[in-house]
């Protein structure tokens, strides 16, 4: 029973990372109907920036904040300089550009930072809090940081004028232009925010998976699974999907398939959702005549 509880809780902690990644994927999907395969690599690169800043002697949270700003600007830059050039082109073009971006960022990180595995610090104490042994302080911190960030993102979309404009631009670009919204910039902002979410996920994951250019390879798969499970067009579904996938992964790893085959759980979820309920648990079914 204790072991089960432990697996459940630490599944939630992993799920926090998947939730951020999934929400980042959903945000870009909502706006462009494209899945950003490079999301994980961008997160990894941001984490290297944080690492470099911390190594240079900056306090963790200062480095954290600068990394978020760096990621935001980078995300906007990628949209403005690269993605807007392929707007209106075929889906295949977008997929190829995303894969190119993935490979390029991965290669850039390897050459700039070398591909040796580095430990990444956790900002949370290493001693267990309140004598609990179910969750490490880092795991608790991961969940808290993720919930705070998700809360801010949802409040931004729900309560601010800019957030409303971004939702409008994603839903109906033509009408948005007619009311004066700069749709191109809204897409760029979406990319910026998605990169910020990715950076948070990367920095929270790095103390567990260690820092190296391929650190997000597994995480991004769970993130895809989470986004699909929650419904790829539903921003509320993404975090729920993230936590569900985290728990499922841990339980399956502990009791069903063993820890070596945990990644297969993500692939299983992806295939199962696409076969049995392509709209996900909370998504809408959209029928398109082609």
């Amino acid at each position, binding site marked *: 029973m204790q072991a089960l509880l432990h697996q459940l809780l630490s599944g939630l902690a992993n799920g926090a990372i998947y939730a951020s990644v999934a929400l980042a994927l959903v945000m870009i999907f909502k706006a462009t109907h494209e899945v950003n395969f490079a999301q994980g690599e961008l997160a990894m690169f941001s984490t290297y920036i944080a690492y470099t800043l911390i190594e240079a002697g900056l306090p963790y949270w200062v480095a954290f904040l600068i990394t978020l700003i760096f990621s935001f600007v980078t995300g906007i830059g990628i949209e403005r300089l690269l993605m807007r050039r392929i707007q209106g082109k075929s889906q295949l073009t977008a997929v190829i550009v995303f894969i190119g971006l993935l490979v390029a960022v991965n290669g850039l990180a390897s050459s700039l930072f070398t591909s040796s595995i580095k430990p990444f610090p956790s900002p949370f104490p290493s001693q267990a809090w309140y004598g609990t042994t179910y969750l490490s302080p880092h795991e608790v911190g991961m969940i808290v940081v993720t919930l705070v960030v998700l809360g801010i993102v949802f409040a931004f979309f729900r309560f601010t004028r800019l957030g*409303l404009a971004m939702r409008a631009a994603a*839903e109906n670009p033509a009408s*948005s*232009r*007619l009311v004066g919204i700069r749709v191109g910039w809204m897409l760029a902002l979406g990319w910026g925010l998605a990169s910020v979410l990715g950076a948070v996920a990367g920095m929270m994951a790095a103390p567990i998976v260690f820092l190296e250019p391929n650190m997000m390879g597994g995480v991004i798969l769970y993130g895809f699974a989470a986004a699909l499970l929650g419904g790829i067009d539903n921003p509320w579904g993404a975090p729920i999907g993230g936590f569900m996938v985290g728990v499922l992964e841990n339980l399956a790893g502990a009791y069903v398939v063993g820890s070596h085959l945990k990644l297969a759980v993500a692939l299983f979820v992806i295939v199962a959702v696409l076969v049995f309920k392509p709209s996900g648990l909370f998504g809408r079914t959209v029928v398109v005549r082609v």
Partner: protein
Amino acid sequence: MTAVLELRGVDAWYGNTAVLRGVTLDVQDGGMVALLGANGAGKTTTLRAICNMGVRTRGEIRLAGQRIEGQPTERIARLGVGHVPEGRGTFLGLTVDENLRLGGYLRRDRKVASDTSKMFGYFPVLRDRLFQQAGTLSGGEQQMLAIARALMSRPKLLLLDEPSFGLAPILVQEIFRILRVINQEERMAMLVVEQNARLALDLVGQVFLLETGRVVASGPPQQIAADESVRRAYLGQ
């Protein structure tokens, strides 16, 4: 009297297909103008050309004297053109309230709230539906929402693409009555595209008749309505 909108010899294309050929028309300050014509005559394209929506144009388009052709759509909205597009352009997944707030997106003044309640005066049903998703509204309610959304920006010029489309006749009467009130009370200039020629002729002060991309007749509605060929083609007489 000055013109809020002037088109001078405007050509327009979708891809390589020419749709408008040398369209020239004016909308006077505070004027109400109808653009009539058969399906495919280029009425919607004229509105899209004004807002630079997915159509290539050549020629001169002026808003309050200023050249606007080739400007991005959102800039033209900022310059004071409200547009109720073909198919209403409702943000279906957002609430009625959010749709109205988007209408006032560009405004920084404090009168947005009082304008919102003015919209409820024109269209009381919007207040009852305020926090519903716009996609759950009936066609008539969505049309009212689309008009209210465009009005929320306090445009100098309101473009309306078939406000009667798909609505029950009684509702059409009501919407046109309200448009007339707004035109008179706010001195807001309007350019209305309409299939229902009879209705439009009752409403407006000036008519332009389009045929296969050209303006073939223009004048006050009485004069247009008296024209033998117009009566046969558009009024079924």
